[in-house]
């Protein structure tokens, strides 16, 4: 998938935040399906999020390089350098608003 630069996340949802959090805390690329497991979300909500984040330039998907496994290759995902910076800022903003009882959830991340 071609790199189109960093675009803001148009819809920042709890599953998106969960995905960003797992990727930010991980030192290595994470298999897409494992992201679903780690976030406790169904693949049905994770796949579109990954595609959207990848199109927006926040994350990059790569094929897992595992010579021992036969069959189709697993797709792994990691934050880009800029994506990591924005994800950290976005999560900080999200968490700060989450602790305010009367606050509304942010709908757009412009970090």
């Amino acid at each position, binding site marked *: *998938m071609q790199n*189109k630069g960093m*675009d803001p996340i*148009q*819809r920042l949802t709890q599953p998106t935040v969960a995905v960003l959090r797992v990727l930010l805390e991980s030192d290595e690329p994470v*298999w*897409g*399906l*494992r992201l*679903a*497991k780690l976030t406790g979300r*169904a*693949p*049905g*909500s*994770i*796949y*579109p999020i990954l*595609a*959207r984040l990848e*199109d*927006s330039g926040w994350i990059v998907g790569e*094929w897992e390089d595992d010579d021992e496994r036969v*069959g*189709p*290759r*697993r*797709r792994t995902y990691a934050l880009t350098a800029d994506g990591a910076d924005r994800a950290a800022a976005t999560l900080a903003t999200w968490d700060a608003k989450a602790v305010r009882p009367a606050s509304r959830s942010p709908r757009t991340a412009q970090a």
Partner: protein
Amino acid sequence: MNAEWIVRRLASTVPAAHREERLEEWLADLAGCEELGIPPRHIAIGAVASTLAYRPAPTNGYGMTEHTRHALRLVLYVATIVASALWVWVHGTHLSVSGSNVSFAFPGGAVIDVIPVFMVGGAVVGALAAGFGYRSLRLFHAAADATHAATHAVDA
């Protein structure tokens, strides 16, 4: 119909630029889902969600595609017309209820049961809906491919 058959069919509706990539990802997830305790049907459902939500360049957004919305609207129109026609048909003739059997009589004297008619009508509308939906997805993605190719041709 198993999960692999579903994801292969869905992958065929994905824009050509992403088709092979999506298919390999879904097949790999199907192959490895049990080690994570995720049922294969969840992969198929995920593929359905991803396919329906995917809207390729130039808009790069996600949500139900315009073509899918048109298809659903068309199905709604057809269902409304069929239901209205049946209602007029039933109320314009002599409707009789006997136990669990509902029937109506034509002015000429012919009598037919209502429930089988509704069941057949429902099946036809359902089949039309599925057909329109699938065809719309294919048409939309074909158009997206053409747009993508044209954009790259201009860039080149």
